[in-house]
């Protein structure tokens, strides 16, 4: 693909009303939806009306007057961006009179603009330049030194883009993008007339302002006033390749804009169905880690973790890996080794890792990091609805009337979806937030929750059951839906259970700490407010009762008839880019791709025929079970692709003990991560920019990842797995990931229609995509549940065993922030550290005062599992009795604190509840110091010996 800009139709598509109008533009007749602007209509016909203040990501404004047209029978020259099409209208866009008027407008703009085009970063990619050409401006009568903007200082505080006021034409596209697209409202136009000026949060500069660096304003800016630093540095791009973000489960698609082999910028793709042209700071800007000097590019091995690493050839590393795994199996048995697939790698790579384990290792000891995030979603939704995935696409939120957000902070975790949700809220949808923290959604510019239920961590099931109590006892349920779609007896049992007085909002108030009236009001709103849509996150799943909570959510949705159409549903907000895909691809020890149990003979024989081996019919070990078995001496070898279990999994001491007890740990990753401190083989991995494949986002949308540059380490990750497989005697012969997808399609009914040529043609597909749903499935369970009848499951509140007491009186809950991703291995290696240089402990002012803790003080955080130190942030965002931190930095290792308690059904760790004490401290704990020393020792790489 050579470089062309995406077409800008000038104004957004009209809101669908079903009606259309026919008109004539420059002699051509055209029929379009009512509400379309004349500017957009002309553009859709292939023409283009000159414009400056209009762009199709934001509503038109009508300030520049460059887009004037003539309309027969109307006086004057209306602005085409603000004038909607009308039946029978006759429009002319190019007349001598219009040309003259436009030239006049342009002349004024140019006379006020520095004419340093030749040295400007945007030269060749500037709309002002283009439009001056388009209107045929040759001469400026007013001189070139309009005093307004010249000589103003640039704001270069943002690490990724610059703001140069002297190039600003005051079109306010940036302001509107920040308001309408992003919803942050960080920009204003200050001052009047010649003194007006774009300003970030009253003149603080971009970095110090509310700006979250999403880039929407930069994209909207027609000039070099807001410009990516990288474009200034490298120059304008000469080709573009569409690919998918490798950070979060929103799955934004981008044009990777290249200059030769160098990535210049990632521009959100307007046709991307998940992001619709928007992005967040991570996907848009934080890709510098791909070229970071810490990346390991050569394979390394060592006999023991106390030795330094030794760089070896790929052949040697692969042969050593295969021989170690075979040696261990010969000595300790077939089931003594296993592997972990990565939610960051592609579907194809994940499929290959589980295939390597099932076919090559001969057991089912495969698990994935979804274990520690959304395994309860898989369990809970498959029990109640029959599929392990969310029910809607992201667009669905625009039809929701009541949005219930539980244990999720989309503003930070799923920013692009949050922007969409906020847009819907600004249109008037109601909002209920159930979260111990006063998250940004509870109150932010132009968005305020109608109800915030700040429940005590660990009481989700009690709270949701109390809402069900209100819905059942006040007869707010949807009887017709239940009768037609659900099992009647199960509903009756459930209704009986939730109606008991012990489950009323009043009865559970002492447990949850939330006023009963507020709970009642929220339940009534959800049940009766129109389309009710539930969005939830890790605050639901990462609990002892994670699976029960997911089922309690599904019960609420079924009881109120909020499943099976647009605008409603149950929507897990998935963390990592491909966590949905990793689950779909058979990464769990008890099931093959498409969620089919390994004991199912028909499915197993399908795989046995395809792979030519007998497969194990017994479920394998999950990650915590593998670590236990390792400590017990029965599990000795582990292949870890693209995960850092030492940092991301709970109870670091337990993980470290398990890893240390193994004889061969193989880590395939970009960096020497924390897990690699315990590894014997390091296989350097590739980034998403360096390979082909697919990711599946939280809406079940399968999207292409495209290679834009050669892998620095020599191989794509799928090729490395194939090398290991072949060294173990498996004879794999894939030349391209499309062949792996063909195999997945052949073996997985829900993926039967997923092939690269279809993805190429459609852009993306939402599974199930097969003969029954050739174009995929945006909304699930229309007309009936996948499992047949919807199943109401009684969810009894069982308090966690992790209890506060005199020594550990506070509850710690953990989470993440916008600018970092998971364990931070990538984002910490980018300029995103400007926003979050360290993990901090949020503590309520009263708890802080009791302990003599002030903002910024070092504090020791101690639980039954361990101790660490970090700095305090005193804030009312957390309730008294609750403290909160992120886990993005290995120096803090929040998981030293988290315990082994986990979800009863899936062993998903209880990250969200740990009893802790917080005390003033004056520096790192002993453990942190020891750990830092050990990590340093473990990362030594021996100098290469001289060649013989």
């Amino acid at each position: 693909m050579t470089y062309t800009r995406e077409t800008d139709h000038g104004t957004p598509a009209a809101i669908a009303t079903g009606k259309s109008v026919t008109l004539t533009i420059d002699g051509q007749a055209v029929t379009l939806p009512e509400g379309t602007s004349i500017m957009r209509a002309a553009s859709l016909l292939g023409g283009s009306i000159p414009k400056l203040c209009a762009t199709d990501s934001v509503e038109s404004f009508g300030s520049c007057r460059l887009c004037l047209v003539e309309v027969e029978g109307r006086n004057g020259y209306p602005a085409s961006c603000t004038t909607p099409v009308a039946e029978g209208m006759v429009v002319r866009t190019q007349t001598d009179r219009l040309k003259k008027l436009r030239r006049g407008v342009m002349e004024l703009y140019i006379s006020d603009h520095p004419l340093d085009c030749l040295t400007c970063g945007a030269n060749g990619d500037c709309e002002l330049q283009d439009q001056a050409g388009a209107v045929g401006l040759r001469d400026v009568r007013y001189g070139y030194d309009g005093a307004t903007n010249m000589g103003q200082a640039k704001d270069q505080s943002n690490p990724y883009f610059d703001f140069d006021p002297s190039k600003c034409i005051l079109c306010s596209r940036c302001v509107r993008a920040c308001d309408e697209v992003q919803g942050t409202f960080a920009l204003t136009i200050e001052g009047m007339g010649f003194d007006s000026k774009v300003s970030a949060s009253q003149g603080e500069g971009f970095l110090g302002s509310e700006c979250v660096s999403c880039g929407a304003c930069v994209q909207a800016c027609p000039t070099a006033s807001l410009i990516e630093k990288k474009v200034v540095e490298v120059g304008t791009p000469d080709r573009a390749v569409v690919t998918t973000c490798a950070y979060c489960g929103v799955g934004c698609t981008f044009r990777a804009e290249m200059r030769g082999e160098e990535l210049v910028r990632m521009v959100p793709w307007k046709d991307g169905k998940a992001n619709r042209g928007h992005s967040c700071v991570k996907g848009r800007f934080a890709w510098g880690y791909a070229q970071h000097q810490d990346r390991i590019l050569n394979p390394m091995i060592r006999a023991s973790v106390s030795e330094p690493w030794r760089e070896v050839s790929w052949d040697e590393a692969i042969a050593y890996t295969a021989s170690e795994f075979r040696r261990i199996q010969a000595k300790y048995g077939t089931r003594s080794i296993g592997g972990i697939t990565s939610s960051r790698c592609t579907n194809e790579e994940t499929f290959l890792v589980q295939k390597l384990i099932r076919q090559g290792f001969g057991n089912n000891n495969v698990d994935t990091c979804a274990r520690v995030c959304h395994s309860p979603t898989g369990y809970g939704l498959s029990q109640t609805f029959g599929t392990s995935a969310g029910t809607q696409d992201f667009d669905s939120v625009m039809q929701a009337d009541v949005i219930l957000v539980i244990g999720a902070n989309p503003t930070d975790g799923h920013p692009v979806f949050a922007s969409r949700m906020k847009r819907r809220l600004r249109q008037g949808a109601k909002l209920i937030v159930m979260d111990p923290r006063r998250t940004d959604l509870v109150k932010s510019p132009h968005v305020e929750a109608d109800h915030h239920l700040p429940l005590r961590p660990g009481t989700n099931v009690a709270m949701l059951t109390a809402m069900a109590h209100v819905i059942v006892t006040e007869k707010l349920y949807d009887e017709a839906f239940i009768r037609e779609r659900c099992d009647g007896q199960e509903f009756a049992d459930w209704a009986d259970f939730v109606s008991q007085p012990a489950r009323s909002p009043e009865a559970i108030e002492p447990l949850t700490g939330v006023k009963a009236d507020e709970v009642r009001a929220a339940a009534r709103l959800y049940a009766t407010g129109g389309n009710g849509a539930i969005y939830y996150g890790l605050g639901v799943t990462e609990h002892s009762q994670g699976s029960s909570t997911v089922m309690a959510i599904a019960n609420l949705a079924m009881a109120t008839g909020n499943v099976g159409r647009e605008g409603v549903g149950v929507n897990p907000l998935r963390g990592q880019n491909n966590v949905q895909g990793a689950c779909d691809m058979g990464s769990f020890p008890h099931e093959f791709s498409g969620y089919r149990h390994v004991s199912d003979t028909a499915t197993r024989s399908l795989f046995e025929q395809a792979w030519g081996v007998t497969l194990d019919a017994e479920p394998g070990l999950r990650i915590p079970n593998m670590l236990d078995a390792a400590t017990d001496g029965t599990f000795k070898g582990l292949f870890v692709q693209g995960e850092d279990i030492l940092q991301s999994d709970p109870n670091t001491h337990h993980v470290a003990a398990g890893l240390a007890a193994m004889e061969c740990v193989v880590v395939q990753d970009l960096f020497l991560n924390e897990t690699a401190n315990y590894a014997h083989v390091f296989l350097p991995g590739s980034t998403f920019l360096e390979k082909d494949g697919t990711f599946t986002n939280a809406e079940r949308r399968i999207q292409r990842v495209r290679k834009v540059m050669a892998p620095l380490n020599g191989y794509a990750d799928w090729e490395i797995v194939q090398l290991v497989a072949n060294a173990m005697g498996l004879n794999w012969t894939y030349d391209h990931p499309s062949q792996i997808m063909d195999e997945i399609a052949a073996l997985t009914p829900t993926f039967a229609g997923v092939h690269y040529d279809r993805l190429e043609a459609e852009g993306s597909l939402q599974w199930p995509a097969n003969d029954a749903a050739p174009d995929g499935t945006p909304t699930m369970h229309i007309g009936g549940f996948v499992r047949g009848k919807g199943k109401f499951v009684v969810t009894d509140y069982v308090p966690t065993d992790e209890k506060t007491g005199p020594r550990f009186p506070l509850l710690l809950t953990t989470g993440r922030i916008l600018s970092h991703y998971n364990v931070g291995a990538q984002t910490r290696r980018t300029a995103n550290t400007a926003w979050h240089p360290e993990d901090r402990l949020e503590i309520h002012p009263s708890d802080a005062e009791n302990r003599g803790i002030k903002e910024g003080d070092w504090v020791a955080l101690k639980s039954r599992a361990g101790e660490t130190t970090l700095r305090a942030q005193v804030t009312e965002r957390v309730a008294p009795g609750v403290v909160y931190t992120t886990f993005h930095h290995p120096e803090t290792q929040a998981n030293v604190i988290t315990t082994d308690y986990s979800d009863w059904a899936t062993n998903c760790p209880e990250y969200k509840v740990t009893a802790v004490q917080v005390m003033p401290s004056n520096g790192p704990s002993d453990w942190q110091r020891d750990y830092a020393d050990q990590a340093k020792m473990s990362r030594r790489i021996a100098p290469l010996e001289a060649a013989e």
Partner: protein
Amino acid sequence: MSDETEVMSTGDRLIYMANQIARNLAAQGEGEAVASTASHIAKFWDPHMRARIVALSAERPDALSPIAAQAVRAISA
């Protein structure tokens, strides 16, 4: 539970897990809870873990709750 730092042994953890499953399913009524606890363990625990819990239930008969104990008996049959 005491406030001392605790690291569960694998045996303790398996017992804890079996009891935790049983406790979360108890609201279904005893008969159904035993059956679902048994099928849950059969479906999600690897053979080694299952053998271990069967052995543990014999070694430490009081460690398992009544529902968990019956479920373990069911999977050992």
